[in-house]
């Protein structure tokens, strides 16, 4: 029986070739997209689960009850003190994430000059780190209990030493803690992609216990309980009641820490630090649940559209299958036997589509991965519950649509069939209409979403920022600051300024598009209002050229003088405000602020007020900013002519390497740095554009099939009408009108939904465009145009057929 079903199913698929191709292509595309996105979901879900005991590991954080956000940077001495008091803690490890970033100098031989590498991903960790998180060792033991020990990743080892063994070698790390030698105790396999904790180089915390290796940064003393800068992970004995433990930890912590009165300790499971288990999760996470969920929603939408296509095209074929169904019944088939027969066809079609979709996924995987910057593969689907989910969706889609179609096809009474196929009417027309409307509603929503996304993106990218990003190259300053540092920086600036192609050069300790230096509270007017000391300001350390180089306009006063730089802001006590800061401080306007003193522990004089500019992206409002004078050397911003960029940068590089020997030269273009802040929107834009394109494509294919069928069905009517004198336009109208009406209905349904969703989405931007009517008109027109063109192809073909032929055939 089954083999007969299979044989007939494949024969039918071949016989109705066009329909089969449309069906299979739509389904394969739908399932393919679904598989790709399932990979992504599996990848995101599977984070931080490779350590064998990940279920017992928690990250501790402090909540002070008032603020929504917790504090994840805990004092370094805290973990050991807590473990001593709480026996349920089996082990802990601390991470000073990227704390040791700087330059690594590697000597192959003792005497050589060494090769310098800029390394950002350098973290201080506890001795048991590798074993605690289950990072695999490749070489050595990787124990970091002793001072001046380090472990490096396999690719870092390869970069430093090629194929030679790394363990036992000594590297020199230059960073904020000065220049320190470390002995490599181990090489670990590159961190799994599904780990939020990453490092190229791990340094032992023990090292920082020696003041000689702290370069005056005594806040970093790893036994202290003051400044918090470490992530603390605790491994709790299995079976411990988590809530009770957190409560106990809170009590103990209040004894350990001096000012921990209202503080609450909370524990976040390691597996949840990537993807929040729910939308109102108050812990910090590295991944984005909203991304995963909207991806999943898109995937399901596209798959559903593909299945609906199948249902539509197959039921519409029912008329040609009615006779088969009726005759089979006369020959003794029960309805369920006929259902199984038709269901077999669906299963065969699904299996073919599935195979093609796997080929499709394999084909586009590299592009998809490049786009998402994630190492995804089909293998990920088998990692966890996703596998079951994928099977469920495919099987459910197949069964549901298959049974639906089979039910319709098997419903014809044999009597009617025998009376003649010509008399048959296909029921369920309204259902087919609903399906088409659903498909196009989804498509129109995706189109409108895409337009809005790009509109907002363009808006943000084209707003006047109040500063100029053009033709600016940002060079990272030297990583090691020593006594001669200031002179070197000044020398560098002077030398660069001499170059003919250089317009201006400024030094600052951070740059627009990247961030501030720190934020501070407790800054007030001399006669403060209540609560003023709680207000927060974003501080940026700059030199006198900063404002001029960036074309930032002064409202009042002017830039710092060279003398103020040399003495530095702690001594000269001069500041420049932006307008927002002046306002937040309580000055009526910029003029009022100029020359005034403000209180920040000591008195500082306002020597200038600049016009507000966007230091960061338009996601956020302009912050009140305070600029502090110094001979900065974090970043040099060089304004230069656009011609021969590469060659000019090489000239600057030469000067840099001469003045900062051993410091790797790295540069970036400021407009690119700034634009990076919009990467999320750019990605979202591409994702929605692709989704909209695919959805429209599949829906249009379905429409194409439906129109083909309508044309076929109306061959006789068209023939008669033409004989009666109808022209091509009449015929096209006859076939297209119904479909276009459906698409119009879709637009009416889609618009309010899209309006609501997009309005909500736009809320997250401090500066945003509104929704305007033309977006809906544009989105709707696009859908109508595509639908019309699709249907037109079929109707033109029908309209141009010779009426005599079609009538004789009948």
């Amino acid at each position: 029986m089954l083999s007969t079903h299979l044989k007939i199913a494949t024969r039918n698929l071949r016989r109705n070739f066009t329909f089969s191709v449309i069906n299979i292509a739509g389904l394969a595309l739908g399932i393919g997209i679904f598989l790709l996105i399932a990979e992504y979901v599996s990848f995101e879900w599977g984070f931080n689960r490779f350590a064998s005991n990940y279920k017992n590991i928690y990250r501790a954080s402090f909540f002070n009850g008032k603020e929504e956000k917790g504090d994840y940077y805990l004092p370094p001495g805290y973990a050991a003190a807590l473990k001593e008091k709480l026996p349920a803690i089996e082990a802990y490890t601390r991470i000073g994430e990227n704390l040791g970033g700087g330059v690594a100098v590697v000597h192959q031989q003792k005497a050589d000059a060494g090769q310098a590498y800029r390394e950002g991903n350098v973290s201080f960790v506890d001795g048991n780190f590798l074993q605690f998180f289950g990072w695999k060792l490749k070489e050595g033991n990787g124990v970091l209990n002793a001072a001046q020990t380090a472990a490096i990743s396999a690719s870092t080892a390869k970069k430093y030493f090629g194929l030679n063994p790394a363990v036992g070698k000594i590297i020199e790390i230059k960073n904020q803690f000065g220049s320190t030698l470390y002995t490599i105790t181990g090489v670990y396999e590159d961190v799994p992609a599904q780990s939020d904790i990453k490092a190229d180089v791990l340094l032992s915390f023990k090292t920082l216990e020696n003041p000689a290796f702290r370069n005056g940064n005594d806040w970093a003393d790893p036994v202290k309980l003051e400044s918090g800068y470490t992530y603390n992970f605790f491994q709790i004995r299995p079976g411990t009641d988590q809530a009770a433990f957190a409560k106990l930890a809170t009590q103990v912590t209040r004894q350990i820490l001096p000012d921990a009165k209202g503080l609450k300790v909370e524990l976040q499971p390691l597996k949840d630090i990537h993807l929040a288990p729910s939308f109102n999760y108050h812990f910090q996470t590295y991944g984005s649940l909203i991304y995963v969920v909207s991806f999943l929603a898109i995937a399901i939408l596209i798959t559903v559209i593909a299945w609906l296509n199948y249902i539509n095209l197959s039921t519409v074929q029912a008329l040609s299958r009615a006779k088969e169904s009726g005759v089979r019944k006369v020959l003794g088939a029960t309805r369920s036997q006929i259902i199984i027969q038709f269901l077999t066809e669906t299963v065969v079609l699904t299996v073919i589509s599935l195979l093609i979709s796997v080929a499709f996924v394999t084909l586009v995987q590299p592009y998809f991965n490049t786009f998402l910057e994630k190492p995804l593969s089909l293998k990920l689907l088998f990692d966890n519950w996703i596998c079951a989910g994928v099977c469920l969706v495919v099987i459910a889609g197949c069964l549901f649509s298959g049974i639906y179609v089979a039910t319709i096809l098997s419903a014809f009474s044999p009597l009617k069939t025998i009376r003649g196929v010509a008399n048959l009417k296909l029921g369920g027309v309204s259902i087919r209409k609903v399906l088409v409307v659903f498909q196009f509603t989804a498509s129109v929503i995706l189109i409108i979403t895409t337009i809005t996304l790009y509109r907002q993106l363009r808006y943000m990218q084209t707003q006047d920022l109040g500063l100029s990003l053009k033709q600016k190259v940002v060079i990272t300053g030297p990583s090691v600051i020593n006594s001669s540092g200031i002179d070197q920086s000044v020398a560098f600036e002077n030398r660069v300024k001499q170059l003919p192609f250089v317009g201006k050069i400024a030094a600052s300790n951070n740059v627009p598009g990247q961030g501030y230096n720190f934020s501070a509270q407790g800054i007030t007017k001399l006669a403060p209002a209540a609560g003023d000391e709680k207000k927060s300001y974003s501080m940026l350390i700059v030199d006198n050229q900063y404002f001029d180089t960036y074309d930032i306009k002064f409202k009042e006063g002017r830039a710092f003088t060279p003398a103020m730089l040399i003495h530095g802001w702690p001594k000269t006590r001069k500041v420049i405000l932006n307008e927002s800061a002046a306002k937040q401080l309580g000055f009526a306007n910029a003029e009022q602020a100029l020359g005034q003193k403000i209180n920040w522990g000591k008195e500082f004089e306002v020597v200038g007020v600049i016009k507000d500019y966007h230091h960061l992206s338009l996601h956020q409002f302009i912050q009140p900013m305070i600029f502090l004078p110094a001979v900065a050397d974090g970043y040099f911003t060089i304004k230069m002519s656009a011609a021969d960029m590469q060659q000019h940068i090489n000239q600057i590089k030469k000067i840099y390497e001469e003045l900062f020997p051993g410091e790797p030269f790295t540069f970036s273009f400021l407009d690119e740095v700034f634009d990076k802040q919009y990467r999320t929107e750019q990605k979202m834009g591409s994702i929605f554009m692709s989704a909209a394109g695919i959805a429209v494509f599949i829906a249009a294919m379905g429409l194409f099939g439906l129109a083909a069928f309508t044309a076929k069905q109306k061959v006789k009517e068209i023939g008669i009408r033409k004989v009666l004198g109808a022209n091509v336009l009449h015929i096209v109208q006859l076939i297209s009108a119904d479909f276009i009406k459906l698409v119009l209905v879709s637009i009416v349904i889609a618009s309010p939904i899209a309006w609501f969703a997009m309005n909500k989405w736009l809320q997250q931007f401090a500066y945003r465009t509104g929704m305007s009517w033309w977006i809906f008109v544009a989105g709707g027109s696009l859908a109508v145009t595509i639908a019309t063109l699709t249907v037109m192809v079929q109707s033109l073909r029908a309209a141009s057929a010779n009426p005599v032929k079609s009538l004789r055939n009948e």
Partner: protein
Amino acid sequence: MLTLKNISKYYQVGGSKNFVLNNIDLDVEEGEFVSIMGPSGSGKSTLLNIIGMLDQPSEGYHYFMGEGVHLLKEKQRTALYKQYIGFVFQAYHLIDELTVYENIETPLIYQNIKGGERKALVADILDRFNIVGKKDLFPSQLSGGQQQLVGIARALISKPRLILADEPTGNLNSKQGEEIMELFRKLNQEDNVTIIQVTHNEKNAEYGSRIINLLDGKIESIKNI
């Protein structure tokens, strides 16, 4: 073999009943060959369909092989006609998607007969109807007479005791029609298969042992030959 008693079939048109069959009484014995004649629209097909249980009467009693068909549920009716009845149609009603062989085999599949046995049965009947050479062709590749031959072979494959044929020669030329009639006669006489056929053709009607004339849903006359 079957008895119809006071069988009526009507359609509600507006407020009044539009009778297609009006109070039909009919007995058919096992081994009979009955021809039904009458003008177009007189209810011949409706009568045949009711006998074949594809259609239900509005009123009346219908007994088949001793069972009260009017008392049975649809499933039981299906089981009953599956076992005893074979249909032959004017328009052949072969399944276009299936080959000759597969068309003939289909009823056996629905009777859950095993593959090996099916093969033997189909081979046997192909041989008997002299269409072995055509077994892999599709219906569209056959002439009308050949298609009807396949239709009859398909009706006979499950060894029915009753064959219902609605204008089996209606689409055939007279020579092809005669061949089909000869075949029916042979089946009737040699295999004792009961046959009820609808026909417009006097000559073909006379192959039967009894001719029933229908007019406006009533039996106008019965002629025994």
